[in-house]
C-alpha cells in the first residue's frame, strides 16, 4: 500500500511540476480563454484563438498594456459543455486569471455561467445565443449580435419590400433552431405571418421536398436559418425548382465559402452580416471603417481570409483591456463595473454601448443588409 501511495504521490507531483503555472510577476494581466479549437465548431474557435494570440503578442512586444504584460491562458473545449466547465474551473482555480474571454459556442458559454457567477469573475462570451444576456447576469457579457437581431434586420428589410408572408426553413443544429425560435417570436411584431415552417438535418443533401411544400404556399419570401452546407443546398434547390421568391439567409452564411458552394444560385440572396465583410465598401465617414480595415489586413496578412468570428475575439479582448485600464486595476469587481460602463467602443461587430440592462450593447445598425451580386457582397440600404 505504501508503494502505491508513494507512486501516486510521485505521479501527482510530477504532474504538478509539468503543468504548474510559472511564477508570475505581479505586473501581468492574466486573460483566460476556453475555445472550440477542434471539433465541429472549430471554424469559430480557430480564428478566435488566432486573433487573441496575434494581439496579445503585439501588445506585449510593444511593452504591454498600460505597462503590464498580458498573459493568455487558453484551453480547447472541442465545443463540449462539460469540458468548458472543467477548463473554466481550471482557469479560475488553478491559473487564477483576471477575467475570461471565450466560449465559442452557446452551449459552452451557457454551461459556465453559473460557475462564473459563483466565482465572481468577469466573463465575455463569444457565442451567439440571446439566452446568454437575457435575462442579464451580473458577470456575463457577450460580443456577437444575437440571432434575434438578425431576424429583426431581415424582417425590417422584408417590410421595406412589402413582404408580409414568409416561409421559414431552418437547420436542426443549435444555430438553426435558435434562429427559428427567434424568427417565430418576432414575426408578429413586424406584422409578418409565417406560412410554412420546415426544417432539415445537418447532413441532408437535398431539400427539394421541403421546398416543394413551401412552393405550394402563398409565401412571398423564403427565410433560411442555418450553418454549413445546408443553406447552400437550400439556395441551389430553390433555383432548381424555379421558385421565384426573394431568398433570405442568416448571418450564419456570411462567408465566402457560402458563395463558392452555392455558385450562381447565390445571386440575389440577401443576408444580414457584420460590416467586417464589406469593410472596403463602407463610406469613409463610417466610424467602424478604420478599425475594420486594420483588423482585416492584420489578420489576413498572418492567417488568410478574415471571418466575423475572429472579430468577436478582437472586440472581447479590447473591451476587457479598456475596462482594466479605466479601472486602473485587475480587481474583478471593478473590472466588471467598467466593462458594464463601456460606451462608444468601436469594435468589429459594431459600436458597443453597454449598460446594467444591456450586456451586449450593440444596436440594430451593427448589422448591414447585404445582397450577393456577381459573387460578392453589396450593401443594400
Amino acid at each position, binding site marked *: *500500500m505504501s508503494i*502505491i*501511495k508513494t507512486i*501516486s*504521490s510521485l505521479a*501527482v507531483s510530477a*504532474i*504538478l511540476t*509539468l*503543468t504548474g503555472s510559472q511564477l508570475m510577476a505581479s505586473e501581468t494581466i492574466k486573460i483566460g480563454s476556453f475555445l472550440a*479549437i*477542434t471539433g465541429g465548431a472549430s471554424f469559430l474557435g480557430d480564428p478566435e484563438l488566432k486573433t487573441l494570440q496575434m494581439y496579445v503578442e503585439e501588445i506585449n512586444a510593444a511593452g504591454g498594456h498600460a505597462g503590464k504584460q498580458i498573459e493568455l491562458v487558453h*484551453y*480547447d473545449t472541442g*465545443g*463540449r*459543455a*462539460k469540458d468548458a*466547465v*472543467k477548463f473554466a*474551473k*481550471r482557469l479560475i*482555480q*488553478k491559473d487564477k486569471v483576471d477575467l475570461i474571454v471565450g466560449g465559442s459556442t*452557446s*452551449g459552452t458559454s*451557457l*454551461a459556465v*455561467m*453559473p460557475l462564473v457567477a459563483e466565482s465572481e469573475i468577469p466573463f465575455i462570451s463569444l457565442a451567439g*445565443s440571446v*439566452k446568454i444576456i437575457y435575462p442579464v447576469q451580473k458577470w456575463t457579457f457577450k460580443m456577437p449580435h444575437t440571432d434575434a437581431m438578425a431576424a429583426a434586420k431581415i424582417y425590417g428589410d422584408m417590410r421595406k419590400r412589402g413582404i408580409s408572408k414568409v416561409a421559414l426553413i431552418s437547420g*436542426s*443544429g*443549435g444555430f438553426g*433552431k*435558435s434562429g427559428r*425560435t427567434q424568427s417565430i417570436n418576432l414575426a408578429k411584431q413586424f406584422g409578418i405571418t409565417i406560412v410554412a415552417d420546415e426544417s432539415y438535418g445537418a447532413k441532408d443533401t437535398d431539400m427539394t421536398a421541403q421546398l416543394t411544400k413551401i412552393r405550394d404556399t402563398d409565401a412571398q419570401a423564403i427565410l433560411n436559418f442555418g450553418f454549413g452546407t445546408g443553406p447552400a443546398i437550400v439556395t441551389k434547390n430553390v433555383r432548381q425548382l424555379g421558385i421565384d421568391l426573394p431568398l433570405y439567409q442568416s448571418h450564419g452564411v456570411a462567408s465566402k465559402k457560402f458563395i463558392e458552394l452555392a455558385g450562381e444560385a447565390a445571386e440575389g440572396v440577401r443576408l444580414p452580416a457584420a460590416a467586417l465583410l464589406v469593410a472596403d465598401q463602407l463610406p469613409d465617414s463610417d466610424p467602424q471603417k478604420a478599425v475594420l480595415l486594420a483588423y482585416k489586413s492584420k489578420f489576413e496578412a498572418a492567417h488568410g481570409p478574415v471571418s466575423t468570428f475572429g472579430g468577436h475575439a478582437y472586440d472581447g479582448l479590447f473591451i476587457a483591456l479598456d475596462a482594466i485600464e479605466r479601472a486602473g486595476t485587475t480587481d474583478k469587481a471593478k473590472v466588471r463595473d467598467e466593462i458594464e460602463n463601456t460606451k462608444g467602443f468601436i469594435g468589429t461587430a459594431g459600436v458597443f454601448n453597454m449598460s446594467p440592462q444591456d450586456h451586449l450593447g450593440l444596436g440594430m445598425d451593427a448589422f448591414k443588409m447585404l445582397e450577393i451580386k456577381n459573387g460578392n457582397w453589396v450593401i443594400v440600404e
Partner: protein
Amino acid sequence: MRYLRGFFILTAIVVAMPFLFPDNYYVTVVAVAAGLNAILAVSLNLLMGYAGQISLGHAAFFGIGAYSSAILTTRFGWNPWLAIVAGMALTCSVAFLVARPILRLKGHYLAMATLGLGIIVNILLVQGERWTGGPDGLGDIPTLSIFGWIVDSDLRWYIVIGSVLLLVVVLAQNIINSRSGRALRALHGSEVAAEMMGINTTATKTAVFVLAALIASLAGSLFSHQQTFVSPESFSFFFSIELVTMVVLGGMASTYGAVLGAVILTFLPELLVVFEEFEVMIFGAILMLMMIFLPQGLLVGFNEQIRKWLLQRARASGGEQRRDIA
C-alpha cells in the same frame, strides 16, 4: 476476500487524495470527472469485458439519467432523489425493452444496433427542444443534499462521486465472483457451450445489459446535478466511443482496469494541454503505443508482464541452484 484486495487499494487512494492534496484542482475537479467516467467504464465493462457484448450506445443511458434528473427537477420541481429513481426506472424500462431484440445480434450487428440506440437518444435530446432545451442545453439544475448536507463544493462532490464509485466497484466485483458472474464469463467464451451447461443466456445477457444501463443512469443523474447544466453533446456517440476506449485501454474483463482506463483518459488531456496544438496528436500517439505494446490493456498487460518477469527470475535462480547442486 481476496477478490476485494484491489478494492481496498482503490479505497485507500480515493480517501488519501484529498488529504494529501487538499484544494488541488486535479483532485477536486479532474478526479470528479474521472470518477464519473470510472463509474461508467465499470458498468460498461460488465457488459463488454465480462459478457462480451459490445455496446456503442452506453452514453444513451447516461443521457437518459442526466436528462430525467434535469427535466424533473427544473421543470416539475421534483425532489432530486426522486428524480434519480425516476430516471433509473425509465432507463430500466428502456433497457429492458431494447435488450431482447438487440442482444439477439452478435459482433458487428450488435455494435450497429447499440450505435443506433445511442444516436436515436441523442436526436431526441436535440429535437425535443420544449423539454430538453435543444442543442443549447438545460441549466439551473439544483444541487443535491443528503440529510441537510448540501453538496455544493467541488470537494463535497469528490466525496459523493468517490463513494458511489467504490460502491459500484464492490457491486461489480461481487457480481463477477458470483454464480451469475461465472455465467457471464461462460457466455463470453461460448454462448452455445454456456447454454449446454444450463445457463439461460438470454436472461443473463438482458440482466447485465439492464444493470449496466442502471448504473449509467445513476452516473448521469449525478453528472447533471454536479454540472448544474446538461447539453446533448455530452451524451453523443463520441462519448460512447470514449467509454469503450476506457474499457479497452485499461484492460477488458478487469474492473480495476476499467477504473484505470477512465482515470488515464480523463487525466491525460489535462496534462497534455501544455503542448497546445500538438495536444491531440500526442494524445493519439500515446493511445496507439499503449495498444501496440499492451494490447490486453494496461492493467491486465502490466500484471502479465510482471508475472512473466517473476517467473523468469524464479526459473533463472532455480537453474542456478540446480547448477550449484551439480
